[in-house]
């Protein structure tokens, strides 16, 4: 539900209201469908595990109707232009970390996220931000994996320094 809701909203709340309404209605319908799909084990209560999805789904659909109503009523307001490139850098950084976490380990994957985020905020010197991210992620790995017993994914770099 959130994908369609995220990509198109923003510039005009007027249009955004309809997109949100669509997202809410879809989510509501999904919940009602799943609510009915569950085998009924209501017992003494008279309602089972399907009741809450149905009820919440219904309210979501009502809220979708509310959004349609307010979208028709209100006029479009000028909305500040958003910097979608910056969003791309951060989301890209998060996905890069996700993909590289296992093969390259926490330190390198997180350093890349660090540099991408800095780039999103307008800092373009990767030759500075990448080493800075590496050092920070490395210290964080040492402190959390070593001292605080948090189990972080390790790979070449971590094994090299801390041993297998």
């Amino acid at each position, binding site marked *: 539900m*959130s*994908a369609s*809701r*995220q990509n198109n*909203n923003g510039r005009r*709340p007027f249009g955004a209201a309809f997109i*949100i309404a669509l997202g*809410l209605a879809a*989510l509501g319908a999904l*919940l009602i469908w799943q609510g009915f799909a*569950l085998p009924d*084990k209501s017992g*003494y*209560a*008279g*309602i089972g*595990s399907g*009741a*809450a999805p149905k009820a*919440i*789904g219904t*309210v*979501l659909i009502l*809220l979708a109707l*509310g*959004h349609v109503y*307010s979208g028709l009523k209100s006029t479009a307001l000028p909305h*500040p*232009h*958003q*910097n979608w490139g910056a*969003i791309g*850098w*951060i*989301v890209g950084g*998060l996905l890069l*970390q*996700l993909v590289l*976490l296992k093969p390259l380990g*926490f330190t390198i994957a*997180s350093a890349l*996220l*660090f*540099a991408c*985020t*800095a780039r*999103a*905020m*307008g*800092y373009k010197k990767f030759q500075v*931000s990448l080493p*800075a991210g590496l050092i*920070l*992620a490395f210290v*964080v790995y040492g402190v*959390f994996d070593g001292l605080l*017993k*948090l189990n*972080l*994914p390790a790979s070449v770099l971590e094994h090299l320094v801390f041993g297998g």
Partner: protein
Amino acid sequence: MESFGFLMQGLSTAMDPALLFYALMGVTLGTMVGVLPGIGPALTVALLLPVTYGLDPAGSLIMFAGIYYGGMYGGSTTSILLNTPGESASIVTAIEGNKMARAGRGGPALATAAIGSFVAGLLATLALAFIAPTIVKLALVFGPREYFALMVLAFVTVSAAFGDSAMKGLTSLFVGLALALVGIDGLTGQTRLAFGVPQLLDGIEVTTMAVAMFAVGEALFVAARIEGADEKVHAISGAVRMTTTDWKRSWKAWLRGTAIGFPIGAMPAGGADIASFLSYGTEKRLSNHPEEFGHGAIEGVAGPEAANNAAAAGTLVPLLTLGLPTTATAAIMLAGFQQFGLQPGPLLFATAPKLVWGLIASLLIANVMLLILNLPLIRIWVKLLTIPRHWLYAGILLFATLGTIGVNPSPVELVQLTIFGLLGFGMRLLNYPIAPVVVGLILGPMAEQQLRRALAIAQGDWTTLVSTPLSATLLGIAALALIVPMLMRARGKGAVLAQIAGDED
């Protein structure tokens, strides 16, 4: 006075050097992160949750509480010197505090905020200690229907009562409630909405959600604003101390702020932002210098700062005695308790009195530590405000993912982090409140279980929900809290409510 005895015992527990060290760590980290602009107590606790995984329960809970209190203290510094509130409860502080800083009175503003927070934190923590046993006794007569009614009330106050639109608040709440359904149903063991993904069987983690919404969402929001020069930090001019006049003008405001803040926090009546707003209004009305308001009146800093700290202590009352989180921060703290298999509530006072009273006592100690951290050492924290934005947010995202990876290094969690981060960004962009999602996510399953238990006891008779005076009253208040603000908005009086809108706690 049984509380007194328990508190003394708690103090002897809390004086353990290891626990003192955890408290000190907590308040230091809390202040540090709380000072950073854009990070409130909710995110501070969520970000620092992984720090405590390897520690013992008592130590980590004391650390959480220290982080919470420290975050509240730290936020005021940012508001005063930067005019960007460090946390939403400090928005009001920013009005007068920043004016004082511009007028070269940043020192006294910081001092009255710190001492006011101390006074309020101390009094409110004592109030917590003395009121808790009574509520625990009361809670013993609570059945599922009373708990359900209380949760409904909490839902309404956190989502629809304040803010600029009830519909937006309810939308956030119900998105949270919908996400809360994912996973195994606690009563029948049936799987709901997991769509065959094994990682979803446990449901959506509150901490993942909170970190995604508050940290990733905020980072995206800040990055997406094109115009965005860093705000100017006002150097602290003069010593961080107050003149005799400042003291005279502050002390009543501190006490009034405490008196306003604690009950608001303790009842499910909204969080610290509402308390600080009401306190500001009160000070403005009662002041002998009304003309100074808007130009740097010290009461306008003293009152709200005391109120928001008192409210923070107040929210611990329902959290510890009933297991009921009424703010986003409390919801994350509850997740923290649960990670050690502890369920706050009346039983915890009976089964782990040493832990509960040690925690309450350590809050008193944390307060003293915070006073020291925030008065003589304030200049160290102020340096944090000069960190450039790109390094700051790069670091925040690194820590945000660290928590998720450390608990559960599965791609599913990280994908959730990204998706909910985008959701949080969209909600910020379009002015949907964030806190109801988090509160809905954690309270939703609890409310559902209580409802179904209540109905099972009554053999499916829905009138059971209003069959005791207490549950009927609670549901009645919840209905009023939903309807009255809607009428106020319809009559064009919504501006007041919009101002009280709080995002984080």
